[in-house]
C-alpha cells in the first residue's frame, strides 16, 4: 500500500518534469500563428459573394447562357436574372476578332446559334447563405466564389450586387 502510494507519487513527479520538457521544447520552436493585418493565410478557400466568370473571348461578357438553373436551385432566392433576347450575330463580327479565338469559337460551337445572354444579373447578398449550390449547378461554369473577404457597408442596399456591372469593372481594372 505504502510502496504503491510512493511509486505513484514518484511517477507523478516524473510526469511533471516531462511536462516541463514539453513546454521547453515548444518555447524554442517558431510560432504557428499569422500576424493577421500584415499577412494572411488560407484565404484561397474562402467563400466571398459569388461572381460571374467571363468568357475567354470577351472579359466583359459572362459565360452565362441565362438558363436559370442557379435561380431555381437557390434556397435563399437571392439571385435575380433576366434573359436578353438572343441577338443574331453577324458574320463580320466573327472576322473582327483575331484569327485564333475566332477559330476556336468556331470549332467549339459548330452550330452557329447565337448564345443567349443575361440582361441583368443581381445578387442580394443579404439573403445569401454561401451554400454554393448555384456554383455547383451552373452548366457552363459561369459562377464562382469571389475573393472579396473584406465586405463592410452602412446600408443593406450596398450588399445588392449587380454582377454584370461588377464583371465589367473587373475587366476594366484588368486592362489598366
Amino acid at each position, binding site marked *: 500500500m505504502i510502496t504503491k502510494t510512493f511509486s505513484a*507519487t514518484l511517477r507523478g513527479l516524473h510526469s511533471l518534469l516531462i511536462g516541463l520538457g514539453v*513546454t521547453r521544447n515548444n518555447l524554442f520552436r517558431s510560432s*504557428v500563428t499569422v500576424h493577421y493585418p500584415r499577412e494572411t493565410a488560407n484565404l484561397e478557400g474562402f467563400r466571398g459573394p459569388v461572381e460571374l466568370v467571363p468568357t475567354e473571348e470577351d472579359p466583359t461578357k459572362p459565360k452565362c447562357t441565362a438558363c436559370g438553373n442557379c435561380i431555381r436551385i437557390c434556397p435563399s432566392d437571392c439571385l435575380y436574372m433576366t434573359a436578353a433576347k438572343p441577338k443574331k450575330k453577324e458574320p463580320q463580327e466573327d472576322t473582327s476578332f483575331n484569327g485564333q479565338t475566332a477559330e476556336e469559337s468556331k470549332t467549339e460551337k459548330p452550330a452557329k446559334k447565337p448564345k443567349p445572354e443575361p440582361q441583368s444579373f443581381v445578387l442580394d447578398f443579404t439573403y445569401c447563405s454561401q451554400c454554393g449550390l448555384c456554383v455547383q449547378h451552373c452548366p457552363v461554369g459561369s459562377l464562382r466564389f469571389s475573393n472579396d473577404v473584406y465586405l463592410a457597408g452602412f446600408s443593406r442596399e450596398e450588399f445588392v450586387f449587380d454582377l454584370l456591372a461588377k464583371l465589367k469593372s473587373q475587366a476594366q481594372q484588368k486592362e489598366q
Partner: protein
Amino acid sequence: MMDLIFIPWQLFVIGVGLAAVMAFIGLNGLLLVYLDRKIGGFIQRRVGPYEVGPQGILQPVADGLKLLGKQVFTPRGADPVLYWLAPMISITPAIVVFIAIPFGPRLQVINTNVGLILILAFTGINVLALCLGGWASQNKYALLGAARDIAQSVAYEIPLLLSVLPIIFMTGTFNLFDIASGQGAWPWQWYILYQPVAFLIFFVCILAETNRSPFDLPEGESELTAGFHTDYSGMAFALFFLAEYAYMVIGSCLIATIFLGGFQGPILSGAWWFLAKVYILLLIMIWIRWTFPRLRFDQLLNVCWKWMIPIAVVNLLVTLAVISL
C-alpha cells in the same frame, strides 16, 4: 536643504531606500508582466504582445496607463472603507519587506538581525488584504476566492517555515546578510546542496503563497471569474496585480539569498549575481505557470498536509540529528 541635515541619518536612508524599492517594484512589475505574456506566447507557439513598441515591449506601460485612466468605482453594497483599504494593505508589506533583502555586499537598506522573520511575518499580511478585499466586495466570487486564499496560505505557511528552519539551525542566525555571506562563491558551497529537499519544498510553498499557477485557486478564472479581485478595476486592481508580482520577486529573492548564495558568485560578486539568480528563479516560475494546469482544491490541501509537512518535518529532524552529532 537646511532641513535635510536635521533628519536623522537612519530615517534618511530608509526614506531613500523605500523610494528606490518602489521604483524597483514598478520596473520589475513592468518587466515581469511583459516576460510572462511573451514567454507564455512563445510556449503556446504564438507571438505574444507585439503591437505596442518594438516586439510589444511597451505593452505593460500601455496597460498601466489604461488602468490609471479608468474610473475609480465602488460597487453597490461594498464596504467603502475596507474595500479601498485592501489593495493598500496588499502592496505596503511588499514595499516594506524589500528593505531587509541584501541585494549586494553593500546594497541593503537595513541590515537587521531579524530580517528573515521580518520578511516571513510581513508577507503574511497579504493574506489579510486579500481576505478584506474579498469580504468587502460583497460579491460571492470574491468571497469564495478570499476563503480559498486563506485556507491555502494558512496551509502552506507551515511547510514554508518548516523548510526554512533547517537553514536557521545550520547558520544560527536570522540575518539574511549573514546567511548569504555564510555561503561560498561557488555553487557547491551553496545551501541548496546541503538542503535540497528544503529547497524544493520552499520553492513550491513560495509558488503557493504568491498564488502563482498551478496554485492560483484564489483567482481561478474558470470558476471564480477573477476571485478576490473580481470587483476591482483601475488602480485598485493594478495595486493587487503589482503586489502579486512584487511577492513573486520577494519569494525569488528569499530563495536566492537562503539557498543560492545570495549576491555571491564565482567572479565579480555583487548585485549582478543576485539579480541573475532572482531572474532565473522568476523565469522558472513563469515556465511552471505556462506548463501545469490548476490544482483542484482538495489536491492542493492534500499535497500540503499529506506530503509537504511530513517531509519538511522529517527533513528538519534529520538536519537536527546531523547537527547535534
